[in-house]
């Protein structure tokens, strides 16, 4: 199990350390898909990257809390253990298939490099495994693809290569940061099917970072909605869709064009996500919230101030549950 416990991260803005993720807790179990959802700038990618302890050289620092992989703190690992963990136990699929591959090495050399770094294999064995991995992601002409350079492949094909690469060392957990955002709609569904297929087959824990509730609906078992550095709501996917509790979750779900009435203006969330360092006291969403009352801005709101089984929300004024609106 991968567990983030009360994690706070700070980033450096103009020389000052500013809190960007605040007391965040998540649990990702083997065989399940957890969606981390929110707008740009709410800290979701930062959180995801901190699991691999990336970004530390860019001034991202842990100020509190811990990340535990099967009970062991990632922050107490030696460099050597950390290197084995990255890609070996936890790997990552990035958003930009165009920039995540090195343009001057062949696909084959990039995949076999990962395999040989983590698994004790000869070159030949590694190539055989790479071929098999590419077949798994639907590339019939795998032998040929191995010899090609990234430039020869389309975005969808590169994303398949990246997924194959993430699976290369048989990890237990995969972090996928907006894995379909840069792709065509027609390719998105296939990549989703592919990711889910691999996830089930290998009983992986998948952390999906996205701003797209459509993707959450397709893929996730559990959802955590993030706003301005905090998880504001989390719970099983059906619960979140049937009874979104936090006003931010509702607002974010409501502005999708696919659920809106044609010809009507789309509902919007006024204002902007406050930057780290400018978070208000109390509820971070209060200034944009249509339901906010005086008490919202007085003091910090606990993550589970509203609770309904596994479904929790950081809101003092959750409206009574509506009936299933599906």
């Amino acid at each position, binding site marked *: 199990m991968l567990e983030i416990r009360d994690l706070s991260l700070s980033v450096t803005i103009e020389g000052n350390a500013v809190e960007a993720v605040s007391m965040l807790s998540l649990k990702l179990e083997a065989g399940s898909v957890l969606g981390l959802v929110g*707008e*740009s700038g709410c800290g979701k990618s930062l959180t995801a990257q901190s699991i691999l302890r990336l970004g530390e050289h860019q001034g991202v620092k842990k100020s509190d809390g811990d990340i535990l992989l099967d009970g062991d703190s990632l922050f107490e690992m030696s460099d050597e253990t950390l290197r084995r963990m990255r890609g070996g136990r936890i790997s990552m699929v990035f958003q930009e298939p165009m920039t995540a591959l090195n343009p001057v090495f062949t696909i084959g050399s990039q995949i076999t490099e990962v395999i040989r770094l983590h698994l004790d294999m000869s070159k030949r064995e590694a190539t055989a495994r790479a071929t098999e991995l590419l077949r798994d*992601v*639907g*590339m*019939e002409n795998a032998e040929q693809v191995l010899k090609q350079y990234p430039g020869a492949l*389309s*975005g*969808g*094909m590169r994303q*398949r290569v990246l997924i194959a690469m993430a699976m290369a060392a048989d990890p237990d957990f995969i972090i996928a940061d907006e894995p379909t955002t840069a792709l*065509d*709609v*027609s*390719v*998105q*569904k*296939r990549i*989703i*099917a*592919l990711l*889910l*297929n691999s996830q089930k087959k290998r009983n992986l824990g998948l952390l999906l970072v996205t*701003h*797209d*509730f*459509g*993707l*959450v*609906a*397709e893929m*996730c078992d559990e959802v955590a909605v993030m706003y301005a550095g905090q998880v504001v709501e989390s719970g099983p*996917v*059906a619960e979140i*869709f049937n009874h979104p509790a936090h006003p931010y979750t509702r*607002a*974010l779900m409501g*502005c*999708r*064009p*696919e*659920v*809106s009435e*044609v010809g009507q*203006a*789309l*509902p*919007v*969330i006024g204002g*902007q996500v406050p930057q780290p360092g400018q978070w208000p006291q109390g509820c971070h969403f209060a200034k944009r919230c249509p339901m906010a009352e005086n008490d919202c801005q007085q003091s910090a709101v606990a993550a589970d101030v509203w609770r309904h089984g596994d479904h929790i929300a950081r809101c003092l004024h959750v409206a009574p549950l509506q009936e299933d609106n*599906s």
Partner: protein
Amino acid sequence: MSVLKVSGLNKTFSAGGMFRSIGKDKWAVNDVSFTLQAGETLAIVGESGSGKSTTARLAMRLLKTDAGTVCWGEHDVSTLVGKALREHRSHIQMVFQDPFASLNPRMKIWQTVEEGLRVHQPDLSSAQRREKVAETLQLCGLDASGMDRYPHQFSGGQRQRIGIARALIVEPKVLALDEPVSALDVSVQAQILNLLKELQTAKGLAYLFISHDLSVVRHIADRVAVMFAGRIVEQGSAAEVFEHPHHPYTRALLDARPITHPNERQMLAPNEATEATADFGCAYQPRCPYAKNDCSKFDGALNAQGFACLHPLVRHE
């Protein structure tokens, strides 16, 4: 009244540079015709490489056509160049996808927005231009006090508003919008879509809206043209195309839309990756579940009902 009319547009790109001799020319746009009426939105949808952006650029005369005509309003601008073309330019303006790349980072906002005015209304004094910039920024939902700032001081949504203001300042009749919201967060996307609707109603603008996102298109378009491999394969009113698609490719695009609730999940078999197109006949046949032998001899032309398919989907009432 048609504000933009293109007919028989063709464009081929030669397979690039130093490998010219071994490559073959690629049809980017093949016999594309459409008319855009004042005040309406025509969406061109299709996947990457289908030729939708090239079509928009041809219609804007940003690219030279190999064949076909482009009319802006009454004027055939197909063969105009230089100054003569520039004189008609205020008719049609473009908004680009990436609000981070499409604004010059070293120019202040008002300088970026006023550029068009310098060309199209050279008689204005700089004070008048600044005033017009302020007005246009406000129209696009921006505080005019920010006009002395630089692009990096604005968020993605605000930059897209600046991009729209830059296009609107010369008072065009047509905006060509190339994926204007696909780089934005859903919440910001909704704001920009609403803004576009408001501007259209207020100014009677016509939009040529390029997108691969059918949910967005359903929301904003009056008419839709579906492009595949350089050709329009289906064209019609948005309601008709979305409710009763004829072309199997249109159906496939519609099926690829994201679901809205987890209980709509269907287990898709992770199929093999095909991105193939055919060189002869209907380009879609390698991927089409309904393809038959005669498809390889099909000329690909749109029929009177607005689709190009020999074995169209049967309409289910």
